[in-house]
């Protein structure tokens, strides 16, 4: 119900430049971030619940749950409550900054770089030119990969240029078709949510 009123209101608002419509919109842009900020409660709450549960029941690997909960609540405490003199606050140097810059950032960056290794392994063991279409895909990939790196130019100018041509025309055509399709898909989902046809996004809250 709120969804429908809110959705239709904001949709109609777009077409009305009148001052009252603008006033509605302005207070909305003021309110929404405040409401949105509280959404963090969901994440924090469910994480706390899962891990405190694990600790209480001494489930498998429960010790690691402390590694989640301690920084989760420690970070805000260090940043906002601890005085600067005790390495509190958010500026460098502080515990807060240290945890983020020297633990969080290296771990997260490294996690994704693991995939470089996995791609290499899959390249050897799984990427097969099993059909004409897969062959085309792999060929295009090889041309683009060579075209994007400086060594590609060793083979001649045609290689990077062919790579760019693939990117600018056939790739663009495919991506535009997908973009239009996805665009319609998003719009249809928006409609379904606004008019209450789709209710899954509530995630079973309260049911």
């Amino acid at each position, binding site marked *: 119900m*709120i969804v429908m009123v809110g*959705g239709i*209101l904001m*949709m109609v*608002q*777009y077409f009305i430049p009148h001052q009252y419509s603008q006033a509605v919109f302005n207070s909305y842009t003021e309110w929404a971030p*405040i*409401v949105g900020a509280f959404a963090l*409660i969901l*994440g924090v*709450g469910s994480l706390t619940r899962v891990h405190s549960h694990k600790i209480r029941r001494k489930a498998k690997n429960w010790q690691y*749950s402390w590694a989640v909960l*301690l920084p*989760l609540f420690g*970070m*805000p405490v260090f940043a*906002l409550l601890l005085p600067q003199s005790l390495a509190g606050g958010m500026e460098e140097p502080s515990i*807060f900054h240290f*945890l*983020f810059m*020297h*633990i969080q950032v*290296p*771990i997260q960056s490294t*996690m*994704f*770089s*693991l*995939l*470089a*290794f996995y*791609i290499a392994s899959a390249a050897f063991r799984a990427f097969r030119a099993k059909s004409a*279409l897969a062959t*085309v*895909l792999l060929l*295009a*990939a090889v041309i*683009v*990969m060579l075209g*994007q790196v400086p060594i590609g130019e060793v083979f001649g100018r045609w290689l990077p240029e062919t790579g760019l*041509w*693939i990117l600018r025309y*056939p*790739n*663009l*055509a*495919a991506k*535009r*078709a*997908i973009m*239009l*399709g996805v*665009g*319609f898909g*998003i719009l249809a989902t*928006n409609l379904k*949510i606004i008019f209450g046809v789709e209710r899954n996004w*509530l995630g079973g*809250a*309260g049911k």
Partner: protein
Amino acid sequence: MYATIGIWVGAFFTLAIYSFLYKENPIYRLAEHLVVGISLGYGMAITYDIVLKPRLIEPLLTGNHWILLVPAILGLLYITRFIPGIAWLSRYPIAFLMGTAMGVGFPLTMKTDVLRQLEAAMQPFYQSGMPWHVVFGNIVLIFGTLAALIYFFFSKPHKGLFFGTGSKIGIWVIMLGFGATFGFTVMGRISLLIGRIQYLLGDWLHLIE
């Protein structure tokens, strides 16, 4: 001093993650759990400092902004999610944000991703002075977009000249596009590895600039 310790700790955790390549181990698991806690903790602190403090608490304390209590109470309803019995109340803030976001997004998505793209797809393929590969490219672009759209068209069997041939061309064009994505994804993953190696060899060991 602060920075040096930081880089050693960072290097330690970088290697801890890479140890997963050999096999899973407790240090990897520790790092994996830490990252979940820290990122959400960071989010909490930042959100308080940047949003709640200047936009909600300070205006409320100075008075005159009592109307801001409405979004605050709406936001606090999220907590009810964890109280059995009244958990349905947490739907209200979600509904408020979802509904309005959808409403704001609808006309704009229509404009950016549909109308503007249609407009751009309707380019003349030849204008005097264009080199041949551009003209050829434009023709590929127009037919390719059409064909790929046909491939994603589900109301007609893919038979006959228009739908049959169209969808066949379509899937080839889509494969070329995916080839490009494949190449770029490989490039991206390697780049991230490069970033880490620069960190280990440069910032930590000072072997390279």
